[in-house]
């Protein structure tokens, strides 16, 4: 995949940081506003796709590495399943942090409320784990398909 023109690269340099921050905002506020783990992860993944398309697949492998994405994906998955296991004293996936006063432990308000980020228990942590996993998975998928396109173009030329 060839790189695009200088205008596109300059705009990408401005914009991709905002896209990644916006994606993390959607992940972190998943228990109050629409969004959550998968949606935010998909937004951050689209930032990686933007970088790949505008810089070309040969240049972007200098700063987007498949190994690191694969490592983060494993971390996200293991964090999710460990959070499931840690409620096993009562049942699997039990929300042991809700209404308890620790992390994310404020009591949930029933009905219309202005929204307190500190509620929710295990749910925001699971959102973060899923978001980490989804953004790394998008990175791996997009990079693998780009390198597959490189291989077929070499075969077409020869």
């Amino acid at each position, binding site marked *: 995949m060839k790189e695009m023109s200088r205008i596109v690269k300059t705009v990408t340099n401005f914009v991709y940081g905002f896209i990644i921050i916006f994606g993390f905002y959607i992940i972190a506020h998943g228990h*109050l*506003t*629409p969004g959550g783990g*998968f949606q935010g992860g*998909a937004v951050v993944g689209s930032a990686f796709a933007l970088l790949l398309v505008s810089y070309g697949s040969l240049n972007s492998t200098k700063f987007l590495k498949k190994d690191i994405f694969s490592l983060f994906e494993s971390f996200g998955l293991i964090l999710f399943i460990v959070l499931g296991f840690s409620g096993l004293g009562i049942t699997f996936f039990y929300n042991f942090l809700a209404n308890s006063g620790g992390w994310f432990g404020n009591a949930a308000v029933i*009905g*219309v*409320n*202005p*929204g307190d980020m500190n509620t929710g228990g295990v749910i925001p942590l699971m959102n973060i784990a899923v978001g980490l996993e989804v953004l790394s998975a998008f990175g791996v*998928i997009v990079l*693998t*398909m780009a390198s*597959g396109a490189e*291989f*077929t173009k070499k*075969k077409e030329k020869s």
Partner: protein
Amino acid sequence: MIGNLPYVAVVIFIGLGIYTLMFKKNLIKIAIGVVLIENGVNLFLITLGYRKGAIAPIYTQAPSGQAMVLPTPQALTLTSIVIGIATTALILSVAMMIYKHYGTLDTDEVRRLKG
């Protein structure tokens, strides 16, 4: 106000998806057919939850005293969209593997397993 229009759209989506799946010969077009059917079914699930004159089911800073649409179909549709992404990524990867091996995406020429 909306009436039965979303259900008509669902039927059109699924019909077009089945047409594409049955009659097109390019592997990528077959993948697009699968995605069309999946979009039709997702639209069907979301439309089931609609109640007339209701707002989105979010309690944070919501206007008080209003009815809300059902939130469960929204959770079901979200799960279905995630599964759809995994399916699409896998179908396209397998199509890329076939192209890498045979050099063409036409099903008539790729087909080796018969009988």
